[in-house]
């Protein structure tokens, strides 16, 4: 146990020994505590009931975020769409990871694939035109894609290539972040992936005169393909 730890803990305990001035504390603070994850839903932007309403909201948010959203009937339609994108955008090398959805998609593309597996070549990944990954879930409230290092090929694959294509199924659409955290808790419990990412639109910046520019450091383009809409 370090000296710093002992000293800081002692200082925290001593600091909190003096109760907070009731005038400052106020009733608002006490009312706020304990709303809990379910309670937050009463304040946050509303999410309608039913799959169709959630899809509508996700599509609305995705459009505002400049996400290319595609709904496809099945795996065959998904692969046709990917081949069309590959031709239009001139993909030469794709990056991806092992998995059912990504495996089928990459096989159908017939392009060289850099797989994000332990020991992969980072420079090769950087040179890829696109990263194709699966996801944990889609979030209707915010138009976000929830990924983890386990579902989506680690950390860099979803951020390093200039274009990120997310393959999802319609049943992965969740209403809000609370539902997303519940899903992760159920899937991983105490054995957490070391990276959990919420991706809300393509990389962006407003650091120059507050003017929106996409693709600051991460992908300039984010495509979400939802199967069985």
């Amino acid at each position, binding site marked *: 146990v370090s000296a710093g730890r002992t*000293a*800081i803990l002692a200082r925290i305990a001593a600091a909190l020994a003096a109760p*907070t001035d009731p005038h400052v504390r106020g009733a608002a603070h006490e009312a706020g505590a*304990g*709303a809990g994850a379910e309670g937050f839903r009463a304040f946050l932007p509303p999410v309608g009931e039913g799959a169709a309403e959630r899809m509508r909201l996700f599509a609305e948010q995705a459009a505002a975020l400049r996400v290319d959203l595609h709904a496809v009937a099945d795996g065959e339609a998904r692969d046709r769409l990917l081949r069309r994108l590959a031709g239009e955008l001139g993909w030469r090398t794709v990056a991806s990871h092992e998995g059912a959805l990504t495996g089928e998609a990459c096989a159908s593309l017939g392009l060289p694939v850099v797989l994000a597996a332990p020991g*992969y070549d980072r420079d090769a990944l950087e040179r890829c035109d696109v990263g194709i990954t699966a996801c944990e879930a889609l979030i209707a409230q915010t138009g976000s894609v929830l990924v983890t290092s386990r579902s989506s090929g680690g950390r860099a694959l979803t951020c390093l290539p200039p274009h990120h294509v997310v393959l999802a199924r319609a049943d992965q659409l969740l209403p809000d972040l609370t539902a997303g955290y519940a899903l992760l808790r159920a899937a991983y419990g105490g054995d957490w992936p070391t990276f*959990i990412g919420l991706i809300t639109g393509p990389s962006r910046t407003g650091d120059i005169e507050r003017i929106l520019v996409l693709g600051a450091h991460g992908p300039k383009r984010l495509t979400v393909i939802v199967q069985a809409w």
Partner: protein
Amino acid sequence: MSSTAREFHRAAGSVAADTGQRAFMRKALGGYEKTRAATEARFTDWQAARTAAAGIKWDALEDLHALIQRFAANLERRGVKVCWAEDAEQARAYILEVVRRHGAKRIVKSKCMTSEEIHLNELLEREGFSVIESDLGEYIVQLREEPPYHFVFPSMHLTRGQIDRLFVEKHGCASNDDPEALTMEARRVLRRSYLDADIGFTGANFGVAETGMISITENEGNARLTTALPRVHIALMGIEKIIPSLDDLALLLPMLATAGAGQALTCYNSLYAGPRGPDEPDGPEEVHVVLLDNQRTTLLADPEQRDALRCIRCGACLNVCPIFKNIGGHSYGTTYQGPIGSVITPHLRGLKDWKHLSNASSLCGACTATCPVRIDLHHHLLRNRRNAAASASLAERAIYAGFAAVMRRPWLYRAATRAGRLLSWLARPLAGTVLDPLRAWRRTRTLPEPAATSFKDYWRDRAAGKRR
């Protein structure tokens, strides 16, 4: 007056006189206010959300002793090395030791205000390491060798033309002042730094005690690459960043995004739970989390103002502050600018040198009304003023005592107002000159002329029937 106060007066006066700069700032912040209002309006109940967010951070502070231990224990269980730094010196020494032990040459950093607080870049550069700020705004101010202007929008004071000239000078690239082209130029230059760096350095927006994770919020993806590619990750965070549970983020992340930049959610909200797992393709081999006190416990010990530690550094109080809009971010001379900086800096760095910041306020309360975690900001400025008065200089106290003596005695008050009228007439030629005791005010303004008759005299004459 302390040297910090003198410098503040000089810098603030100079920006306030620069109408071009002020118009530029008003335009940028006007855009913020519009998008923010629209995003806020999507909430079912924004005010209740503020109350709940304040409640989460409040409970976290009151339970900090237990939560911070749970946070550290959960991190350590997953192999993260935790450093408890009492002050800036200890944090710097620890970080320097880690960097040296790895034989590192290059360090890539994502935006971290706490590292500005401990002046980390200066130290690492002095020791011969290459340090690159990867957030676009931070990168720009680093190239200009100046501190961030705003702790969320570091380069908001610069025009595209200034940034273009900077890139032409530093990169030797062709001139193009289109924001898109400038961003792509920075992207091109910074890309290599993620792949080449030995150490990735970040801050943290929240520390989740329940799961032992740090949460980082950003728009550009630079923090994501900083934590994905280098083999060592060092994160520096203030001890007040701890929150109890993962679920709390479902409220805090949308609120941070809305208050900070009018976004429903910031582009990347990432949770990091330790070094790369055996089945994971990438991520750092070693992760260090440095918990920094640096006088935060001094603020925690103040039963009146400890709620200022609820701050989630969204920057909303700066964006709405009439003082910030008129004097700009650099005038403050602090790591944290604007109302929150004026409130906490006297606690973190001493009241004597920083009390003047609490006087630079119109007390309009826009900061308090906008704060997503309901910090009582403008009242804290008043409390700082009260605390400062107790340690005022002899001259200042003599002025207050004289003022009180006059105000308590009607005859003296009458005499003083008559003398004031006479003196004001006599001193008219001095107005605004170096001999004018009210020069600071009158240099740029005209003081109203005292009325020929005081209200008391007027009322007495009226009662006596001399006037109507």
